[in-house]
């Protein structure tokens, strides 16, 4: 056991011990039943709560919750029947004292039992809609003691008698009286089921009243005492009910941004132990629940930008609540962060969507926004980024989206782009952003290269302008190299560039990524309408063919350009089937491209704009197969990182046990992603197979590093 305690990290999924022994449940219940007896017999000091908790936990985990729950009911009822007898036999004035003493004992026992059965209380009971342990204990007390025939009437008459005695001038034990009344209050919930605001305000008014009274005529020392009593009476005993009140409880205040009410509640509950943690717990579970709905909602996943915006709004909302009502408490802030971290990762697409959100903002959303506002938005995005467990997935998408932004020539927002990279770098270190920075460098270098090229070839000034971006392999997202046949004039130009480039950079290899380029071409239509068309390289290749022909069949186009069929169809579709952009027309007219279609220049093409944007490479939400592919690439990329971490750790530690290897690897990698323990295990096994590690021959937990 001592060994287990030492572990500073545990992976839940592996912790559960395997239980298949049918006698297991009976055996474990006996242990817990025994503990309950010991608690009621004031022998609790010899019990190990940790062990009992674990036993109860395991019973619930292994689906023996019923046994545990009903065992508790039976055992507790039996004890209460015994207690009932001992109260019944108490004579005269001892009656109330005995009742009070037993009530206190029962409450203490109940507290301990609830602690042991905490896991049942949190999972099994809500799931099966049973009464929580504490409430159950109160109900059983009510049924077995207070409503026991021999006690009920005697209690009532004793109390009335005491009230009468005091009125007539006798001295009575007020403390005892108060305790008993309080007990009845605790039990008789029906009496206290009033609206939230009433007891709530009442509590505040009473507090102030008492404080005032002290100020007026009581000794100053009494203030603390009185406040204490009032606090206890008015707040502590009603907290749970106040918080969970239907229609007006804490959750509703959160929903409706009731800063003032929330602030009141915060200030009141602050006065009693556990008061704030109760508010916090409710906030966390509410936030987790709504957050979970938000990120798993199919509708909101359809629009990534909207999805992220809603997350940002939710964060703003709670940020404001904590700021306005919860005195900007650090622990509440932490609770907010941990809740976000919890639910944001429930949707595996969160990294992709956050990157798409940034893409959207940097493309168009930030126009007309001041620099400071841009920074604020980016800082908020970074906040969400920090919650991500799979930062490497974000990096992968960010790289793809950035590539598209850079290559589409829309680098208007150079400053925010760089600002975000700096933020990512501060957050995750140089390694994380080095490739992204490499992409910017490539863009800058390419600019210089093009200037050098045209300076060397002044004769080209009249022809078409070529802009080449030389992308370093490895820095950019990998793309399959698909070449197509460029128009002759472009082909010649490209060849010239190639020899220029290779002439100044020996030992390099250039391959054209025609699927990523764009072109601006000038076109004149039937009635002399002139337009500048902004198209993709593929579309340019197709359009240039019409300089020499009036009509081309699909097959002719395919043969001349050698553009892959799926790309060609998409590119023809965007030029022949989209209204307002239909610079081509096809026969027969239809929405889809068929391999027997014929294409013509649409002489009647009109547009109110001179510049017509037809083909743009915009980052989009990935389709399912694309998503799986990216996922697979991410998983592949993780393997060497996990192995490197294992080797680094083992190299310095030489010998280390399994759990610590898992924990340290997880820790080392968590700034980039949450390594899956199963995957770590696989990597360890692979390293054993390749003789980097071995298992210790004596201690099965240990791995040894083989130098």
């Amino acid at each position: 056991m001592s060994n287990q305690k030492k572990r500073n990290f545990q992976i839940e999924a592996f912790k559960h011990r395997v239980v298949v022994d049918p006698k297991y449940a009976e055996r474990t219940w006996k242990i817990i039943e025994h503990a309950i007896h010991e608690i009621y017999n004031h022998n609790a000091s010899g019990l190990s709560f940790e062990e009992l908790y674990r036993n109860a936990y395991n019973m619930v985990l292994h689906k023996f919750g019923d046994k545990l729950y009903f065992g508790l009911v039976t055992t507790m009822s039996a004890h209460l029947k015994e207690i009932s007898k001992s109260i019944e036999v108490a004579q005269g004035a001892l009656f109330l004292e005995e009742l009070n003493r037993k009530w206190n004992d029962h409450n203490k026992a109940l507290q301990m039992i609830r602690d042991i059965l905490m896991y049942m209380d949190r999972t099994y009971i809500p799931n099966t809609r049973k009464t929580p342990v504490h409430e159950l204990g109160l109900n059983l007390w009510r049924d077995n003691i207070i409503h026991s025939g021999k006690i009920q009437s005697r209690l009532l008459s004793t109390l009335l008698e005491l009230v009468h005695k005091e009125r007539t001038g006798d001295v009575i034990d007020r403390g005892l009286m108060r305790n008993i009344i309080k007990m009845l209050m605790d039990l008789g919930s029906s009496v206290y089921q009033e609206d939230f605001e009433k007891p709530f305000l009442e509590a505040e008014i009473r507090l102030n009243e008492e404080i005032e009274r002290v100020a007026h005529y009581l000794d100053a020392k009494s203030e603390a005492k009185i406040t204490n009593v009032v606090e206890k009476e008015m707040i502590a005993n009603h907290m749970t009910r106040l918080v969970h009140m239907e229609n007006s409880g804490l959750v509703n205040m959160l929903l409706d941004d009731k800063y003032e009410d929330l602030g009141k509640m915060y200030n009141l509950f602050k006065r009693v132990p556990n008061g704030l943690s109760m508010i916090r717990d409710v906030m966390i579970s509410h936030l987790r629940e709504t957050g979970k709905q938000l990120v798993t909602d199919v509708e909101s996943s359809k629009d990534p930008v909207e999805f992220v915006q809603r997350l940002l709004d939710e964060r703003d909302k709670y940020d404001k609540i904590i700021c306005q009502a919860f005195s900007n408490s650090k622990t509440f802030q932490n609770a907010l962060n941990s809740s976000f971290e919890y639910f944001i990762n429930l949707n595996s697409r969160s990294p992709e969507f956050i990157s798409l959100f940034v893409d959207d903002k940097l493309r168009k959303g930030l126009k007309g926004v001041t620099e400071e506002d841009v920074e604020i938005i980016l800082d908020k995005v970074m906040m969400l980024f920090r919650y991500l467990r799979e930062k490497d997935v974000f990096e992968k998408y960010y790289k793809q989206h950035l590539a598209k932004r850079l290559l589409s020539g829309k680098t208007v927002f150079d400053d925010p782009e760089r600002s975000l990279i700096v933020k990512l770098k501060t957050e995750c270190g140089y390694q994380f952003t080095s490739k992204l920075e490499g992409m910017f460098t490539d863009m800058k270098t390419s600019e210089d290269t093009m200037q050098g090229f045209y300076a060397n070839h002044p004769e080209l000034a009249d022809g078409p302008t070529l802009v080449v971006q030389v992308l370093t392999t490895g820095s950019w997202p990998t793309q399959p190299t698909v070449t197509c046949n460029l128009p002759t004039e472009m082909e010649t130009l490209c060849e010239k560039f190639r020899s220029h480039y290779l002439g100044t950079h020996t030992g390099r290899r250039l391959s054209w990524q025609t699927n990523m380029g764009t072109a601006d071409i000038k076109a004149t239509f039937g009635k002399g309408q002139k337009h500048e068309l902004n198209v993709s390289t593929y579309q340019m290749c197709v359009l240039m063919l019409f300089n020499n022909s009036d009509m081309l069949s699909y097959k002719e186009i395919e043969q001349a350009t050698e553009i892959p069929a799926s790309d060609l169809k998409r590119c023809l579709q965007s030029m022949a089937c989209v209204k307002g952009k239909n610079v081509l027309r096809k026969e027969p007219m239809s929405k889809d491209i068929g391999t027997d279609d014929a294409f013509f220049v649409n002489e009647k093409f009109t547009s109110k704009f001179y510049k017509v944007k037809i083909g743009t490479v915009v980052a989009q939400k990935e389709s399912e197969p694309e998503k799986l592919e990216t996922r697979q690439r991410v998983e592949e990329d993780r393997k060497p990182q996990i192995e490197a971490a294992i080797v680094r750790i083992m190299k310095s530690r030489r010998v280390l046990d399994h759990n610590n290897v898992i924990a340290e690897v997880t820790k080392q990698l968590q700034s980039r992603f949450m390594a899956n323990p199963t995957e770590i295990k696989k990597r360890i096994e692979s390293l054993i197979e390749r003789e980097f590690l071995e298992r210790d021959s004596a201690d099965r937990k240990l791995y040894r590093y083989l130098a």
Partner: protein
Amino acid sequence: MPPRASKRKTAPPNSSSVTSSDGRSVFSKTKTKGLGKIDRLFNSYANSSSGEIDPDGIVALCSDLGVDHTDVRILMLAWKLKAAKQGFFTQDEWRTGMKALRVDSLSKLKKVLPELEIEVGKPSNYEDFYAYAFRYCLTEEKQKSLDIESICELLNLVLGAQFRPQVDSLIEYLKVQSDYKVINLDQWKNFLRFVQEISFPDLENYDSGLAWPLILDNFIADFIRTLREP
């Protein structure tokens, strides 16, 4: 076809005649004499052209010993001989092995087999034998793992008698799972560890914190699942 055994018997004993002719001490003579018998026994099963006992020779040896060639005892013999290649005994392996067994005839070899079984069963030897069984089946250069089918047969052969229920469950699992097509030495060694250390079928002392290979974690998970939903 003329029986191969008779052909082997006529083959001249190759080295013993040379060593006996150089007039050594009595001690060395008896030793060479012993070697002579061992070599003659070897030659009666060896393939004359390769100078090794090949699979055919082993089949012949087994039938003379009255043991099936797939019997675990033949694997034990191979272990004792430290045979490097599956289905073959070289002369060196044969000589050191037979000397270690103090055997120079077929009848003695037959008699010594039960003792060999006891020897292998000793805890100090068993692990080595078990790992040997795996390596013995690696027939290709740089081969490091065995396919599931071979592993199942091997499990049956070496652990089947002693750990029937575990072996049955494990084999059943190995055949239906699709995560692994081959098993490596580390996984193989852990199978032994598993049957020896883990109480079965309650699995009470199975703790995945003890660094079991993933395939065993998966097996356990599957085993429990099938127990729960019969």
